[in-house]
């Protein structure tokens, strides 16, 4: 894992001191609310429906046991004993008090964490493949480059007041687990014909009220040019991005209005002006950062995994959990363990302080002291020996963390929605809770197979509804909650934006509608076909007819 150097420590500590001073000036009345608001937002502190909300950055989702223990401590001491892991691989606390936040940030700084750039019109927390460094299909660990981008973008003076927020994702594998095509900049590692590894650069993707799939502006960017090229993109956006209309301020609108080719030309022009300068990434620097992400000391002669095989045969629940939650690590004898934060009937992405402590202990014992937060709001232990898997599962089970549903119907992405969020029009979490209760039977879940149900409580799409196989968008109709359903979205390399299926459903009816869609799929699927495959084969008509009756001709 990356460890702070003296610069990181200084930046974070100075920010804690500054914010302490700003809070005290606000409380004394020296700062008005108008003056204070942008300052608190720069430190990730929002005012939501019931209370302040603090968003803490987890760079590319990676945490040590010590860090997640601190997150547990913060949940207990400053909040209500739980935290909410987000689709940006961060954690949010829903109940901190303004007066406590300086101490909270000081506690975070003691474990090399902060809330800088988790809000505001700046470059936000860089996200990466949650399987980085352990996936058997990757070219390189994407976190090396996510960390390099983090260092470059942290307090970057030129990019602190962009037209709008800016999100970057990095994937080192052809299987896209980081939704790079739905980011302002998506970096997809590629190999050129000479076998060199670099990046395909995609720009202008995003969800929100105008969902757009990112377009490639460069097929292959050598690693050494990564930062100068990013700087060129940001500079063009900063100069030309719209500041007159918040809904048209994201780079996706600029790319769309300018046209991909022209936008790419503008970037290349700026890049040619600045490349080869101070932003050049030298091999030594890449290797220095790479060393922080070196593979752990795996057991090179793994013990035979007979015990693990026996346990799978003997214990049906364990076998089911292995099938849905564990994938192979590139290191033989090891697995990547996905820990679901989506037990039936619970809020997706929530973890209690006690559960976070359990996760810290288990990461220490079973996974070289390291955890990852996924953009699907789950937790990953990347380096677990198969021989220890049964013992790990038993301990997870005891902590309510052994739900076997990764990638299945109850593994729902949901934003905080109207239960917490100031922007929301409708509740998300209770809809997710009701769906996960409806589909709680493990046999039923397995039969349905891979299914992404994503729920957003408003058009800002924090719950990624545009890219769900089944997307649910909460809308307000004269003070009442309604839910519009989209089908066929896909955040991966098979990228697609979901299609609106018809009129919205009421809060009471939306879960039945989801059940009807799933039942329709089960009726018309061919053997082993996933929902996405069935959708691509049959399109909207059968689903529409089941939901709304046959179309009138």
């Amino acid at each position, binding site marked *: 894992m990356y460890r702070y150097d003296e610069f990181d420590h200084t930046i974070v500590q100075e920010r804690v001191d500054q914010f302490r001073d700003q809070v005290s000036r606000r409380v004394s009345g020296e700062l008005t609310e108008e003056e204070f608001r942008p300052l608190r937002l720069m430190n990730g502190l929002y005012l939501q429906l019931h209370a302040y909300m603090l968003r803490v950055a987890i760079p590319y989702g990676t945490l040590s046991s010590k860090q997640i223990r601190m997150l547990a401590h913060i949940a207990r001491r400053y909040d209500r004993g739980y935290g909410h892991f987000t689709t940006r691989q961060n954690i949010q606390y829903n109940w901190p008090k303004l007066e406590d936040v300086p101490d909270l940030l000081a506690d975070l700084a003691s474990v090399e964490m902060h809330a800088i750039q988790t809000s505001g019109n700046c470059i936000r927390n860089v996200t990466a493949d949650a399987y980085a460094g352990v996936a058997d299909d990757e070219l390189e660990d994407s976190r090396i480059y996510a960390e390099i981008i983090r260092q470059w973008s942290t307090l970057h003076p030129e990019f602190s007041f962009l037209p709008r927020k800016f999100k970057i994702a990095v994937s080192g594998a052809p299987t896209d687990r980081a939704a790079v095509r739905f980011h302002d900049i998506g970096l997809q590692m590629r190999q050129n014909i000479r076998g060199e590894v670099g990046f395909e650069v995609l720009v202008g993707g995003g969800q929100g009220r105008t969902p757009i799939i990112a377009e490639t502006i460069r097929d292959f960017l050598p690693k050494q040019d990564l930062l100068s090229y990013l700087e060129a993109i940001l500079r063009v956006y900063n100069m030309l991005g719209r500041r007159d209309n918040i809904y048209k301020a994201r780079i996706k609108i600029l790319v769309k209005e300018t046209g991909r080719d022209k936008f790419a030309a503008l970037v290349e022009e700026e890049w040619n002006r600045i490349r080869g300068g101070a932003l050049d990434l030298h091999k030594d620097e890449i290797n220095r950062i790479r060393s922080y992400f070196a593979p752990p000391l795996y057991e090179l002669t793994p013990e035979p995994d007979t015990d693990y095989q026996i346990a799978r045969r003997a214990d049906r629940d364990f076998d089911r959990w292995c099938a849905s939650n564990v994938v192979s690590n590139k290191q033989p004898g090891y697995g990547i363990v996905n820990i679901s934060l989506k037990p039936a009937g619970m809020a997706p992405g929530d973890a209690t302080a006690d559960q976070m402590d359990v996760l810290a202990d288990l990461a220490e014992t079973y996974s070289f002291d390291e955890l990852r937060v996924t953009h699907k709001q789950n937790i990953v232990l990347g380096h677990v020996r198969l021989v220890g898997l049964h013992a790990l599962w038993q301990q997870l089970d005891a902590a309510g963390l052994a739900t076997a549903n990764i990638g299945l119907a109850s593994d729902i992405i949901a934003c905080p929605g*109207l239960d917490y969020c100031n922007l929301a029009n409708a509740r998300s979490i209770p809809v997710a809770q009701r769906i996960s209760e409806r589909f709680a039977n493990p046999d039923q879940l397995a039969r349905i197979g891979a299914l992404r149900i994503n729920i957003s409580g408003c058009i800002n799409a924090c719950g990624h509804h545009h890219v769900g196989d089944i997307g649910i968008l909460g809308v307000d109709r004269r003070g009442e909650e309604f839910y519009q359903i989209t089908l066929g979205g896909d955040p991966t390399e098979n990228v697609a934006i979901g299609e609106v299926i018809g009129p919205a459903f009421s809060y009471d009816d939306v879960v039945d509608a989801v059940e009807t869609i799933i039942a329709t799929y089960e009726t018309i699927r061919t053997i082993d076909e996933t929902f996405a495959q069935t959708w691509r084969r049959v399109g909207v008509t059968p689903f529409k007819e089941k939901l709304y009756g046959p179309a009138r001709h």
Partner: protein
Amino acid sequence: MSKKTEQIFDTKVVTANMLLGGNVVYMATGSSWDEKLANALIIKNDDALTRLNKVAQEAVTSGIVVGPYAIAVKIGFAGPQPLSKREQIRATGPTIRADYSEQAVPNV
């Protein structure tokens, strides 16, 4: 009486969040702020609304509350009830777990 000539005024209360705690409050008697909606001052006409908005702005200036605004309520047996779902949830806390609500964990 014809609706055209009747002055219709939706009954309102003024709400805000406390600056220090961030908790939801309602303007109550004597320019105080109360966590209980039942204790909120009921606003029945434009004059009262103007007056209380002014009091609320003073509370912002003096650093007591943040972002005050008026919400429409109906008056029932249990006192004022917000008309919108948003304000119902603000008044009673998240609907997802009883122990997450303000009422369940007052001023922890």
